[in-house]
């Protein structure tokens, strides 16, 4: 009978369309916020969300300064804390509200609102990825746990560990997991879908006021947001002069164009030498080292071999024994600088080119033959 239910919103008015960008900006700011959590408002939101899910509010709140600290504390959860209720608290209301919205809103409108208010956010996704990787590195196996503790683990801990359902990914929610709430807030406030979105009142308050949460029946672990978050123009985690991500307990990550790198590479770049680049085994970190040293200096120090040269530029290549190959084409600005010199640039390219022309053509997505139709370059 779903098809016969009234679909009230077939199209957005001009005013409703204008509101989309306001909600998009509001939720981008919420996801990327580095403000301290409003702890009492967040706890109130948790109580509301538990009640909406038909659960008793948790007896205990445990605040953590970072998701890594949360992960360390919450992995010690025992039967006293009760089982994890993330699904009942977040996933079930989400499905219920989505079903109610589907009955009231045309699919086209729904998709438009979702894609506009809650677009993919690469920066926040990279924070989630970095946090998950760090907590996984930090995680203990069931055997480690048994070695370290005299008490047996809870049944839930043992089962979830054996099934691989442990860690933040399965048990917690952060800014990335909660950003869908922005779409629902728009639908409630702008399109008036109040009854349909009523189960989300607590979740909104959570998303707006904290970073991460791991909800269990009796205990809810809550974590602060980052104190610092920096990205580049492509929304990759990036800071050329310090940590790209730092939490209030000091836990920090250093990143270059989305690649997590050791601290010294960012803060002591003068220590990057050809030898240090050669012994780095992570090929992505190696690329970062070359970029920070600058390809110009890498080439001048003899780091790469000249493969070919033509009127478009010079093709450079370096092959390491581990089958890692770096290639770049050095191009020269056709227009001179005010002092008469010409700026040189290095563009990193795939390693399989034989000529500089092929490499330069690739940078524009062209074949060397198509690029030969160049009439003028300035």
């Amino acid at each position: 009978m779903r098809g016969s239910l009234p679909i009230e919103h077939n199209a957005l008015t001009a005013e409703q369309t204008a509101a989309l960008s306001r909600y998009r900006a509001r939720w981008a700011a919420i996801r990327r916020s580095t403000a301290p959590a409003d702890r009492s408002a967040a706890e109130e939101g948790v109580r509301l969300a538990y009640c909406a899910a038909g659960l008793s509010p948790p007896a205990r709140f445990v605040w953590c300064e970072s998701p890594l600290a949360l992960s360390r504390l919450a992995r010690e959860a025992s039967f006293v804390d009760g089982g994890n209720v993330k699904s009942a608290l977040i996933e079930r209301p989400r499905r219920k509200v989505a079903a109610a919205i589907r009955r009231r809103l045309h699919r086209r409108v729904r998709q438009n609102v979702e894609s506009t208010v809650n677009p993919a956010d690469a920066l926040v996704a990279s924070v989630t990825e970095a946090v998950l990787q760090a907590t996984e590195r930090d995680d203990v196996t069931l055997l480690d746990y048994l070695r370290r503790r005299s008490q047996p683990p809870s049944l839930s801990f043992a089962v979830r560990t054996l099934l691989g359902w442990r860690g933040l990914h399965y048990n917690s929610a952060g800014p990335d997991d909660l950003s869908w709430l922005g779409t629902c807030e728009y639908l409630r406030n702008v399109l008036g879908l109040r009854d349909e979105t009523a189960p989300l009142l607590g979740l909104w308050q959570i998303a707006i006021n904290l970073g991460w949460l791991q909800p269990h029946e009796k205990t809810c672990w809550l974590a602060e947001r980052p104190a610092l978050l920096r990205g580049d123009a492509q929304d990759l985690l990036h800071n050329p002069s310090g940590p790209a991500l730092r939490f209030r307990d000091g836990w920090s990550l250093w990143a270059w164009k989305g690649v997590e790198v050791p601290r010294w590479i960012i803060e002591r770049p003068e220590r990057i030498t050809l030898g240090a680049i050669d012994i780095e085994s992570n090929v992505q970190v190696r690329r970062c080292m070359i970029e920070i040293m600058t390809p110009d200096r890498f080439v001048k120090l003899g780091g790469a071999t000249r493969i070919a040269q033509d009127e478009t530029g010079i093709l450079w290549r370096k092959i390491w024994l581990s089958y890692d190959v770096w290639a770049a084409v050095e191009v020269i600005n056709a227009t001179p600088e005010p002092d008469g010199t010409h700026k040189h640039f290095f563009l990193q390219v795939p390693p399989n080119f034989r000529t500089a022309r092929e490499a330069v053509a690739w940078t524009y997505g062209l074949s060397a033959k198509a690029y030969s139709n160049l009439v003028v370059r300035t």
Partner: protein
Amino acid sequence: MTEIFAQGDLLLERVADVVPSGSIEENLDGVTMVLAEGELSGHRHAIREPVTLFRDEKLASDMPAGLYIGHVKVSSEYARVTHEEHAPLTLPRGTYRVRRQRELGPKDARVLAD
């Protein structure tokens, strides 16, 4: 033969005239139309002559993802693309498909074989 014009990290190929489709923008004579802006420098590839800039992904299906900027239709005798660091580029009347330059980043690095 497709004529190609390049100004720094911007490349324009002359294509057959088509009716503008997708998202369409027009500028008044003397009002700057920005084709692309440098992320760090803020330098801009811009045109001040009246042109139509339109963007229709269907017209760029043969191009690697992420490079397509749009099409520029020059209806007057010519239009000049200016940039702070490059000499101006003069485009005769016609339609041009505009793309940006790309390079590999650290996250693209892969070991070829093991």
